[in-house]
């Protein structure tokens, strides 16, 4: 399977983002921002920053920002189990720093 067009890639990236967010929540990882984009060359670019709540406003925790480039198998992009596996791998990489 070739890498699909940007609109299709983008939607898969957003699906992956939702899975990462849910897994982060279950791990007790409070995020300020999570940005996932799918590149033309096929990898997923993931930007993550931890957050902390001050009053009603969420602040970013400086020095917790990471950018992770994750290889992605587009043949399996419609498989929820694969997205879950990739999300766990990304979170593991983030927590390992």
């Amino acid at each position, binding site marked *: 399977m070739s890498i699909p067009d940007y609109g299709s890639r983008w*939607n898969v990236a*957003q699906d992956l983002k939702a899975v990462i967010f849910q897994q982060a929540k279950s791990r007790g990882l409070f995020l300020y921002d999570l940005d996932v984009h799918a590149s033309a*060359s096929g990898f997923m670019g993931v*930007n993550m920053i931890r957050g902390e709540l001050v009053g009603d406003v*969420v602040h970013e925790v400086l020095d917790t920002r990471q950018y992770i480039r994750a290889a992605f198998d587009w043949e399996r992009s419609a498989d929820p189990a694969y997205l879950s596996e990739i999300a766990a791998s990304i979170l593991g990489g983030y927590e390992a720093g």
Partner: protein
Amino acid sequence: MGSVTFRRPLVSDDAAPAEEPGPDWPNEPEGYTLVTEHPFSNASVTNSSSGGGATGWGYAPRSGTFARRENNPPMSSPYSGEGTYGAGFTGGNDLFTIYHGSDKGNLVFLGFVHRYSDNWVGHSSGVNKNVFCWANDQATTYLSAQGSGSGTLNAQLRLQAQAQGSASAPNNALNLEGNTGNSPAIQRGVWHRWELFLQMNTSGQANGIARLWLSSWNGSAWSEPKLVLDYDDVIFDPSGGTFDQVEWVGTWGGIGGTLSESQYQQMDHIRITRAAA
């Protein structure tokens, strides 16, 4: 890199002269060639399956609703594109993507006319994204009207991916806040003209340039453009490279939170030009 000639001097204070009648994009560098424009004005396109009716643009739906509004925006009347966040919209989600993905070179001008609805609720993180500008096949920069709840909104250019930012950025090297002492608030319900100039850094050098001018529309004329951001020590990517994709996604946040009532972003026009090859 070659020098860039701007049509107007780089003024950043209120003593600037009144704008002469001139181009719609007064801060576009001289001699730049058109990459693309999206006027959101083709009334025959009622959905955005072809990117809202502009050649070379793509569209993909997500959590918001796209519609064309006949509201006589300032740049390309009578229509604008509108992205609506419905009640119950959750933070971290995007409206949709409307994108243009060709190589823009290492010097790029991105202009757009945009407004946030008059009831806009800023995300609890303060992040209210509108447009991304990619570099080297990565979502390297985005613009945001930073502010939470009904608080003041201020423009920022925020960097991510492999960017290392600016050593002179006030608080966080990756969040390029207003640094000219002249950062007008983004007013809800008012059209603003955003003019962004980016020059990619050379490999290994902190010499990338980011400048942002803002003007507001009073119903009949633009205000004097204000230079809000002026950085010349940015590392967008340690390897240098080129800017490529531009997209309007309208991410609300940040993560978490829910809207209790609907709100929107509207886009009148997007223009991208670059230095001649």
